[in-house]
């Protein structure tokens, strides 16, 4: 039985590549945090300030 051709494994990321990926992750985290604030503010505006006035 003939062996299936082996797929070449890409070389590991260099420290510089890892630093770039880390910066990318930080940017993504900032965007997600911004989205949380965005949805919070828009929800307040859409529903009005009464949404904060709820019995516990």
């Amino acid at each position, binding site marked *: 039985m003939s062996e299936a051709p082996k797929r070449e494994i890409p070389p590991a990321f260099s420290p510089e590549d890892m630093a770039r990926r880390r910066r990318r992750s930080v940017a993504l985290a900032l965007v997600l945090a911004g989205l949380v604030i965005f949805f919070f503010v828009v929800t307040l505006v*859409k529903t009005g300030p009464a949404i904060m006035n709820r019995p516990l």
Partner: protein
Amino acid sequence: MSAAFDRFVSRTDGAISSTGEARDFFALLKPRVMFLVVVTALGGMVTAPGTIHPVIGFASLLAIAVGAGASGCLNMWYDADIDALMVRTAKRPIPAGRILPSEALAFGLTLSVGSVIVLGLVANLLSAAMLAFTIFFYAVVYSMWLKRSTPQNIVIGGAAGAFPPMIGEAVVTGDFGLHSIVLFAIIFLWTPPHFWALALVKSGDYARAGIPMLPNVAGPAATRRQIVAYSLVMAPVAVLPALMGFGGLAYLIVSVVTGLAMIALAFRVLRVTEGEAAHKAAYALFGFSILYLFLLFAVLLAENSLGLMWALPKVLG
């Protein structure tokens, strides 16, 4: 295929994740196009007969901008093969190997769906449906079909770039009327002279990539005549907002003066046909056309939102 295309394939084959940075993903959104979309959508919002809460207006504008960026990203994903062949686009993130095609596709689809849902929740269903249609029109109708099949590609595809003012008006009123249809017409008629001026200079690039732009199919002379014809129709249409009462005296002056300049530059493109001077004439028209569209909408914005409107008698509409 060319060596450039082979390099593009070898760089992306087999990899599962790139080392692209945030700025590479941002570049996929075509930020300069996004900026014009924001300006034109805002134009549709401020000239709409109605008012909107500033936060809702800002959120809607953000969703429209992200939707426009998403369609640009899907365009870059689909066109990566021909972008690798053209000098003007070879350094874009996908052909340069900084972003994988699969990453760009996932990014574009996620932002498309997200922007449409957000606009639907924040504003209304009509504006969300129009944004979805605009993304579909640019990514599928223009990028996947028209661009590689007809020299009228940017004429019909120009509609995608012309929709934002209509989306802007739909955000405010839940409907769209004559004002945003006029703004649509201005951008729609502006697109052919703008792109064909660039295509005259970059016809070698387009020929290499096999894209049937008008200069490559009908020839430079026919393209120059078409540029003049569209400019002659566009400039008077651009004055309509002043005659219909949603552009004031400043808009009237700016639209007439810059419209005449556009026509003069178009005629120079028609007249100067040889050598470096012909390239300069085409570049001058291309560069000025961006300033022209920006100025028209900037004045509309200033007049309608900053209280700088010196109203004129309404002649039409």
